[in-house]
Each structure stands twice: as C-alpha cells, then as structure tokens.
C-alpha cells in the first residue's frame, strides 16, 4: 500500500511552496503522523506529516518549488523496496515549470500588495543589469525579445540558479577545508519579512516619538489580582492586555492611527484589529487580535496565549496574520531598553514596549524609585502629524499609569 504525500493547501492565496527542510530522508522508516518535510511559503511555514507508517520515498529535494496538491513522495506501508526512479522526474518537472495559471496567481498576489509604483517599474527591471545611465540601451530588438523568451517566465529563471546554488555550500560544508564563511539560502519567511520592512522604509515617511511610563499602578494591580484572575480564567494576567486596552482607547481618540493610505485616499478602519508581534525561532510573526474593542482583558490574554503557542509550533494560519490595523511589539522581553520599531505597511503606526527597569524619578519634588518603561511610537508622517503622535502616546501613558481609566474609558 502506497500513501501519497502531497503539498497541503495552506491558504487561499498560496499556490506554491518551497521545500524547506527535509526532516526524514528518503528511504527512512516513518511512523504515521511523523513530521517529514517542512515547506516554506512567504507567509507561513508548514510541516507535512506522514500519511501512514512505512518506508518513505521522496521525489523532491530541498529548494524545489512545489505547487499546492503536487506530489512530494509517498509512504509504502508494506515496507517495500526503495523508490522507482522515474517517479521522481515528473514531480520535479511539475515543480520547476509552473503552469501559466501559477504565474497568473502569483501576479495576482503581487497586485494585492500596496505598491503600485513597484509594479509599474517592473518591466524596466528586467532588462539586463546595465546600470541606469544615459548610455543604457533604448532599443529592444528582436534578438533581445528572443533572448527574453528563451529565458522563460521570470520567476523560473530566478529560481533555477538558486536551487543550483544551495547545493554547492552543502558540498562545501562536507569538506571542512579553509572555508571561513558558510552560505545558506534565505528562508522564504525571512525574505518576506525583509521585503516588507524595506518597503515600509521606502514608502512611509516614518519617524518615532518616545515617552516613558510609570508601571507601578499596573504592577500593583497585577500583584493584587493575579491569583483571582488565574483561578477564574486559567491564564496569567500579563502586561499586554493593559497595553491592548490602552491602545484601543488611544486609537478611538486618534482614529487616524487606525487608517491607511490607498493611493491618494485615506481609508479609516471602523474596527480595532491589533497585530501583536511574536518572536519565533523562524522569525518574526505578527498574529492579529480581532475586534479588540469588544474583548475583555481575559479574552485578550487567552487569545495571546493561544497565538504564542501556535506561533512557536509554526501552526499559525495565514488568515490569522492578515489585516491588522496597528501593531504592538514588545522588545522588552529580550531586555531592550529603547528601540525604534518599523511600521508594518500599510499600517500607520506601531507601539514599541520595552523592558521595565527601576529608575530614580522625580515625583512631587522627591526622588523616588519607580518601575519605568520607555515607550516608542513609530508612525507614518504622511498620515499623522507630530502633535497627534505625541498626544497618542501620552494618552497611552496616562491610561497605563492610571488603570482605572481603562475601566472608566476616560
């Protein structure tokens, strides 16, 4: 009995993945539901599990592009012999030559990204990499055209040399000679992060305003009610729920922070979906808390715990990463005292939390010790001005320093 291992459907906009890490080599014996391959897409990584117990035969190698539903290999539950070689070929070909439908879908995905400018520029990029100077060729002859056709669809040409490249360093690693550097392919998720961050830097007029917040009131509140809270809801009362509540309140007071630019329109969101940056060993993920204005603090804590768990297990669904209106990131968990976060386009702002540190501060003309946290708000100056940005951050500070305000919504 042979059970096929196929590329699972990972979300509506994902039509293909890259074979990331092969966790079980071809020819090895696997248990049912054992992890075999990790697939990478530009949104999520997805582990493929063995459909049955038996001997695994893989028809793909690391770095191969594989369309959704295509064959990765199969598990022979009769413990049969190794793979018949011909099987490997069609699968590879399928992977390397996306149908025109795939190309189309890819294009559609690009279209949904908020960068019409980049698209207009695209055809120019494709010409041979002559520098952008006056001497650059204007005439695109029939020979140029034929060369372009020979190269085939653009994505393919880019992918092909890359797959070739990764094999080299692997070989190099096997002989530990004088190599003083190693090379590995940038994981798809890392590429996606890199692209978005650079986009944000290029597109937005981004700058950061800072403030600090005295955390003693929240710390007192947590100490006082932690036990009761945990008992009732089964989750810890963290700091994040306070920040979410304070941010929603600030977004209500300064709605522009919950808007985005669409060409020349400012689109105002009438909902409060907050992205919460979560660090995983694969990289940064920003799952979205939906309708935060309707969530209680316990709802928020529960949802956050669920996301953190999913993110670490790599099980976060694409839908859970899409469409946030504003982001909160906490560099404090790693000890950061101050940083300037980068906004997540097309969002207009991001709030950076930091480490709580006891510092000497002056209160009522007395030097006192207080648990302080620096706050950073990066924002898109195209949409909001400094006055609003500073007021927005002060609003958050005031809410946090006096938590009853959260209850009273003042």
């Amino acid at each position, binding site marked *: 009995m042979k059970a096929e291992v196929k590329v699972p459907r990972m979300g509506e906009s994902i039509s293909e993945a890259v074979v990331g890490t092969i966790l079980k080599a071809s020819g090895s014996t696997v248990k049912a539901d054992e992890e075999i391959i990790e697939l990478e897409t530009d949104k999520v990584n997805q582990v493929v599990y063995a459909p049955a117990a038996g001997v695994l035969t893989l028809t793909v190698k690391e770095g191969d592009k594989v369309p959704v539903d295509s064959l990765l290999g199969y598990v022979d539950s009769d413990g049969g012999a190794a793979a018949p070689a011909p099987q490997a070929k069609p699968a590879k070909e399928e992977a390397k030559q996306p149908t025109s*439908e795939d190309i189309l879908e890819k294009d559609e995905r690009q279209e949904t990204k908020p960068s019409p400018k980049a698209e207009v520029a695209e055809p120019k990029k494709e010409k041979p990499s002559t520098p*952008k100077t*006056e*001497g*650059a*060729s*204007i005439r695109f002859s*029939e020979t140029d*055209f034929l060369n372009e*056709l020979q190269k085939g669809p653009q994505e393919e040409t880019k992918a092909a040399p890359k797959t070739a490249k990764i094999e080299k360093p692997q070989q190099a690693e096997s002989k530990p000679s004088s190599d003083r550097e190693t090379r590995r392919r940038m994981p798809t998720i890392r590429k996606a992060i890199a692209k978005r961050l650079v986009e944000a830097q290029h597109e937005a007029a981004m700058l950061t305003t800072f403030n600090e917040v005295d955390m003693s009131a929240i710390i007192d509140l947590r100490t006082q009610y932690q036990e009761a809270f945990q008992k009732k809801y089964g989750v810890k009362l963290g700091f994040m729920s306070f920040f979410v509540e304070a941010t929603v309140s600030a977004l209500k007071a300064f709605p522009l922070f919950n808007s985005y630019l669409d060409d020349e329109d400012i689109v105002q969101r009438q909902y409060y979906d907050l992205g919460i940056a979560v660090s995983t060993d694969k990289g940064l993920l920003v799952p979205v808390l939906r309708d935060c204005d309707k969530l209680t603090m316990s709802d928020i804590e529960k949802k956050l715990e669920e996301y953190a768990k999913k993110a670490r297990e790599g099980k976060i669904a694409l839908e859970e990463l899409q469409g946030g209106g504003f982001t909160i990131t906490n560099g404090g968990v790693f000890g950061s005292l101050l940083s300037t976060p980068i906004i997540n386009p097309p969002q207009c702002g991001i709030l950076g939390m930091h480490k709580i540190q006891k510092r000497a501060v002056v209160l009522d003309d007395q030097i006192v010790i207080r648990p302080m946290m620096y706050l950073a708000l990066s924002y898109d100056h195209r949409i909001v001005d400094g006055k609003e940005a500073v007021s927005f951050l002060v609003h958050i500070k005031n809410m946090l320093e006096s938590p009853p305000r959260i209850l009273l919504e003042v």
Partner: protein
Amino acid sequence: MSERDYQVVVIGGGPGGYVAAVRCAELGLKTACVEKRKTMGGTCLNVGCIPSKALLYGSEVYTLVKEQNTSAQPDFIKLMENKEGAVHTLVTSVSTLLKKHHIDQIEGMAAFEDPNTLSITLPDGSKKTITSDNFIIATGSEPVALPFAPFDEETIVSSTGALALKKIPESLVVIGGGIIGVEIASVYSRLGSKVTVVEMLDHICPGVEPYAARTLLQILKKQGLEFFLGAKVTGTKKANGKQDVTFEYEGKPQTVAGDVVLVCVGRKPYTQGLQLDRAGVELDTKGRIIVDGALKTKQSHIFAIGDVIDGPGLAHRASEEGIAVAESIVGQRKVVNMLTIPSVIYTYPEVASVGMTDQDAKAKGLEVISGQVSMRGNPRARCTGELEGFVKVVGDKKTGRLIGLHIVSAHASELIAIGAIAIAAKLTVDQVAETPFAHPTYSEAVKEAALLALGKAIHA
C-alpha cells in the same frame, strides 16, 4: 547651467522630433525645434499618414454611397478641402503645443558647423547660429525616385504629389506595391480611376504576414485593381498625352499607360544639407545615420531617431524613440521594444500586424502555437457585412506568451492595440483568452483566435 543657447535642439518637427521636443521641455530642458517646412508635423502630418487617411476615409464613404446610388459622383474638391482641413488643424495644434511648452520653433534648414553648433538658413536667406549641449536628429525620410522617372509631381508623382492631385486621373499606374502604394491605389480606384499596380516582388506589402498580404491582394483584385507582380519596370515615356510605363512581365515586355504615374518604391533617409561630417556623425552604406542601442550617433551628445536611422518607417516608432531619447538625456530610462510597434495598412479591409509572424518565430527556433479565425464567424461582422479577413494569434509555446497578432479586417488598425499591449505587458495567450471582450464586437475575434491557439475555441 550651460553657457550654450539650448540644452537640446531637435532637428525636424515630425512625429519623432516634435514629440521628443515636448518631452525634453516637460523634463525641464531648454529646447528648440528646427523645421524646414512652414508647418510642424513632418511628412506624417503634412504629406503622409494624415492626408492619406483623410482621403481613404472620404473615398470609402463614397464607395458606400455609390453602392446605394449608382449615379453618385465624387466631389474631389470637397474631399481635398476636408483633407487640407484635417492637416491644417493638426499641424497648427502641434505648433501650439510646442508654444505651450516654451519650445523655440525655428523655421529653416539646419547644418552643423561643429558638434555643438548649428547654422540655420532662415526662409529669408539669412543665417542664424545656435549652440546646444545635445541634439536629436529627426529629419525623417523622403521618397526614392526611379532614375528614368524623376518626379515632376504632376504626371510622375511621389506620395506627396499623389495626395494633392488637381483632379481624379482616369488612369493611374502605381509602381511599387508596398503599403503606400496600395493605400493610394485604393483611394483613386474607389474614386473611379483605372488603377494598375506594378510590383517587382511576387507579393505585395513585403514584411507583412504572408497570408495577410495574399488575402489583401485577392480582396483588392476583387475591388477592381489590376496587379502585375514579379514585374520589373524598365522605363516610362510620354505618349498620346499619357505616361507609358513599360515593364517585363513573365518574360515579355508590357506597357500600361496612365494619366498619372505614382512611384512609391521606398523611402530613403533625409540628411541633405545637415553637414553631418562637421558634427562627426556617420552614415551607413544605405545613408542612414549610424546609432548604437542608446540611439546615440558617433557623438555621444547627438542622437538620431525615426526614419533617418535603421528600423521600420513608422511615425509611432519615431515618437517612442523621441520620448526615450529625451528621457535618457536626463538619465531616465525607457526601452522601445521593436516587437510592440504595430504596422497598419489602411486599405479596406485594413491589415494590421504587431510582433512576430508564425514563420519568423519558427525560423528563429521558437515552438509556436497559433490560432486563426475568419471574420465570417464574427457576429458583429455578420451584422455589418464586413466579413472579409481574419485574425491570427501567435504564441510562444514555452512561455505561453503572445508574441504576434495579425489581422485583416475592418477596424484592424484599432484592434491591433490589443496585441501591442499584450506583447508590451508580456501577457500570455491564456491571459488574453481569459479576458472578457464585449459582445458583439470585432475584437471578439482576437479572443476567439487566442482560445483556438490554446485548443479551446468555443465557436470555431
């Protein structure tokens, strides 16, 4: 800032030159445009594309009227007035456009004194000297004359004279069955002239998709034009108040007589009087200015575009090159993909082509998919009775991309834009086939041909 008079001087005010000048001005360059004619617009607007289209339209309308009323007579004077009206409006608006962009328009003949200096002979005979950082030579082309039949523009005419005849000739002999030849032949044939076309090659309209050229030939013959293909013209002489044209046809000498003889055997680059040697600009053996891929001459600040360099003699090609050169002067980059330049014959039906033909592509080693549908199957054509012709889509099998579109049909000149867009935007035949087209339209034939190329035609 430069101490010279201008940053760019464009020589020639045709569709290449004036467009280049406007783009230069838009980019903030101090620009002048030198034109030897009294009016802007070059061959295209004054004595080419525009007047011929006016006459083609008027004569086509007359044909339709004549079908209903056999006693109808053409009003040639009115037709010419309409033509001149169109030309006048367009050339004036070009001049206004240049004024709006603060481009100095200088009427006169330009000659290089040195690589940065131009001496211009003004209409009154005086000279004006201007200097510039950059030059764009867009002087275009002129009709080639046969040694034994120099133009007098009355009985032996070029296209220029043929578009400005005083009366409809009883008989017209057209030497050269290229695009210009068949267009003007069509005009006078419709107006009642007896038209004979003598072509040296064994087919008309060289360069056009062969099946399209054959189809057009059959249609034109049905319309009453007479063709002698593979005929070598040996001489002309005046006889009985007419002009005799003698040629060898199927090994025997033949003679046809015409009240007017149109010679349209090609156009040659026009560089007369430019003193290019003083500028250090070189010509090739065919008299074309030598340019590199960036359309630079041997002097890196002197560019040349349009008919005066190698490439198809088409107004829109010159315009695109003009824009690209203007942008390259300020360091911007634009590519003119020669495969996206459509070519049109404004006969009835029209013939339009863009990109590669089936034959070309195969010869270049491509694996080709193609689909050809007849206009007879097109519902709109069925309604109007414009059933002649076909649409052919050519695709590259490997990439799926559309690489050619060839049309013989009424309105082909408008339909061809679909192909130019598809090639420019690198669309696949699939993408064109999956695009909804309005029903009923002639353009549906393009979709149907694309579907057919993919083996999934609905109606064929």
